[in-house]
């Protein structure tokens, strides 16, 4: 009833080609953006901006990057954190070494550097597939961190190999508070997410999906395999690189290469598996699940033992949190192996029929 596209006719090509062809979707996205850009800054406090929302957006962007590669183009990668590291360190270097460099340009250039690295390490994908490719991208993970730690130039010869993000200034306006950094992150993530949504409906996106589903068939119908695969690596790494730059500049401020270890790559892979492989929305839901749920559990447990007034040894609480988190992952994977985004899709189907199901 509420969610039904019947009666919405498209009479021009441009109407037919818009990103969200259904009116309800447009309204929902519009409302979501208004909430994120206007309502949230009015009601949230610094804890929310600095500890919850900004990291959530940054990890969503990284998950989105990986989802383009793994979910849409079918190339399994374990090098996500390495691409983020490239983005973070190169953004820092552009800012440091070129005076008066606009920060947004640094972010874009950092993303392009990550793309270049992505293309190089995407080359093996032309020959190997699946789990074997995942192992090949592991090399990227280790090589990039090794290079960042070995060559002092990347960290401006800091003794501990740590970089410190400078000021964020756009057209003379300095982004300093957590709320401002949140808005900057949100702006960048919104633009990139809409771009990704749009890209996946285009010829390129369809080529990605064709390669994912069967690359031999794709090449038979004339899709250039090499170009498509490398393009997928380049775009995916660009997103991850920008996410890494935001991680350094808008979130932590000071970053060591070790922060971008294999563990982070795995976490981002889990995000898209839980959220939904091959879904833009899934990247966001997955990032929310992996980054926010442990925090929620720890807050809830804190309040819980407070209410009961029972002294539970803290080591127990910490371990129970991990156990519950793990069980929830297993639970959701059993209930919905296609990810949480699939649940949203199912509810949309149901809404179409509601209140008169078959």
């Amino acid at each position: 009833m509420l969610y039904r596209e019947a009666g919405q006719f498209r009479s021009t090509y441009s109407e037919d080609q818009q990103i969200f062809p259904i009116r309800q979707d447009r309204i929902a996205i519009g409302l979501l953006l208004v909430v994120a850009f206007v309502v949230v800054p009015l009601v949230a406090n610094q804890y929310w901006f600095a500890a919850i929302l900004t990291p959530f957006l940054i990890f969503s962007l990284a998950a989105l990057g990986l989802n383009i590669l793994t979910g849409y183009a079918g190339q399994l990668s374990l090098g996500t954190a390495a691409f983020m590291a490239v983005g973070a360190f190169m953004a820092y270097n552009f800012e440091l070494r070129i005076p008066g460099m606009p920060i947004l340009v640094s972010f874009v250039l950092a993303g392009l550097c990550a793309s270049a690295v992505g293309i190089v390490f995407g080359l093996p994908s032309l020959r190997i597939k699946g789990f074997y490719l995942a192992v090949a991208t592991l090399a990227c993970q280790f090589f990039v961190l090794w290079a960042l730690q070995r060559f002092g130039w990347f960290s401006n010869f800091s003794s501990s190999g740590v970089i410190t993000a400078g000021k964020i200034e756009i057209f003379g306006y300095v982004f300093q508070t957590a709320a401002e950094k949140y808005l900057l992150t949100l702006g960048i993530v919104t633009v990139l997410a809409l771009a990704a949504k749009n890209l996946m409906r285009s010829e390129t996106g369809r080529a990605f999906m064709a390669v994912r589903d069967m690359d031999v068939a794709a090449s038979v119908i004339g899709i250039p395999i090499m170009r498509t695969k490398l393009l997928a690596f380049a775009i995916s790494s660009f997103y991850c690189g920008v996410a890494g730059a935001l991680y350094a500049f808008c979130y932590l401020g000071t970053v060591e290469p070790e922060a971008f270890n294999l563990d982070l790559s795995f976490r981002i892979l889990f995000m898209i598996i839980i959220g939904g492989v091959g879904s833009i929305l899934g990247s966001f839901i997955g990032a929310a699940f992996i980054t926010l749920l442990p925090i929620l559990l720890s807050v809830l447990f804190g309040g819980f033992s407070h209410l009961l007034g029972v002294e539970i040894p803290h080591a127990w609480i910490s371990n129970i949190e991990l156990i519950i988190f793990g069980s929830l992952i297993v639970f959701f994977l059993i209930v919905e192996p296609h990810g949480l985004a699939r649940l949203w899709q199912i509810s949309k189907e149901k809404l179409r029929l509601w209140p008169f199901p078959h």
Partner: protein
Amino acid sequence: MNRTTIAIAAAAAVFSDGALAQAKEQFVPHNYYWVGPFAPGGTGIAGGAIDYLNMINARDGGVNGVKFTGEKCETEYNNARGVECYERSKNKGPTGATLIHPLSTGITYSLIDKGTQDKIPILSVGYGRADASDGRVFPYVFPLITNYWSQNTAKIKFMGQKAGGMDKLKGKKIVNLYHDSAYGKETIPVLDVQAKKYGFEVTHIAVPSPGNEQQAQWLQIRQIQPDWVILRGWGVMNPTALKAAQRSGFARDKIIGVWWSGAEEDVIPAGEAAKGYIAAGFNVSGANYPVVQDIMKHVYAKGKGEMEDKSRVGSIYYNRGVVFSMITVEAVRTAQNRFGKGQPMTGEQVRWGLENLVIDEKRLKELGATGFMQPLKVSCLDHEGGGQVKFQQWDGKQWKVISDWISSDQSIVRPMVEASAAQYAKEKGITPRDCSKEK
């Protein structure tokens, strides 16, 4: 939707917690870790730190009547979780967080900007950025007692003493076996400077994290045949190194560990292989110090206390936690002497307390900690304050102190600290404070 429910529930929990705070309390966040690969260190230090504050509450009724409160937050030794814990805890209590012990070099790095902006002191006692010792550039960061560079110079001095004079170090071979992380790499530049000054030869060998695979490294060490090996490890890397040394026939009393390699948890898993191994320390082990006895009397005798395994009370990590909290309490006391006795202190006032902190031998005796930790004198210019190290040797059952407090060589460390801090200030566009204008 899923996300919104989470948001609302978490918001309710966070906000309701904050409202419970009352006046006349000093809130100290306990952001440590109780799970994960570094939990042996985390639980011990957290236990000591929390027990000492509870002991002060029980024995003295807090500092001039202001009791310490706290709340635990699990950081998992993970930067993102550490930042979340910091943000969650910083506004609790009547005056917000007093100060924070991040207990991880990575989290310390992530909090430098935030703590400076929020005016909450970040205490990295025996870890963190060495160049933060320059308080002009890092007003809210305190790598107290001894930073890594100072520790390293003390270590070379100790080797010199063993060799019979610093000039005897000429031509000696030293291997620096380090954990391949920001923490591990921190001492490479200072070792290179010292190698040049004293004429010894240093080889840096990296061990990839977490460090449970060291065959190739020890093969290389066997080829070099060094006079000393500096073990700059953390967690599982330490017992692995000791076992590998035994296998390759390298004498353990020629291995000198840093203080994150020198606890019971580092040597007991190595068994016999650890016998004779030497490690640095800025605190000693043992439960027979009056301060630890007081904790036993006022906390554990009443059936309370953090440690489930009471035998760990008095271990290296536990006592290190006690040192952490002694500094917290003394900083609050110093701040109260100036800003009003019996009042809860804000982070900014505690920073003043830290910068004017003096713990001399007399005060140590009053605290029941003579020989337990070193005297401390912090200033605006010098956020390190101590700079001394004791060396201890594992005899198979316990750590035996084998040296007096060995002071560091500030003529090497201080210029490096200032140069590195100046570079940081330049990158960040910070104008260093003028310490003569601080009151």
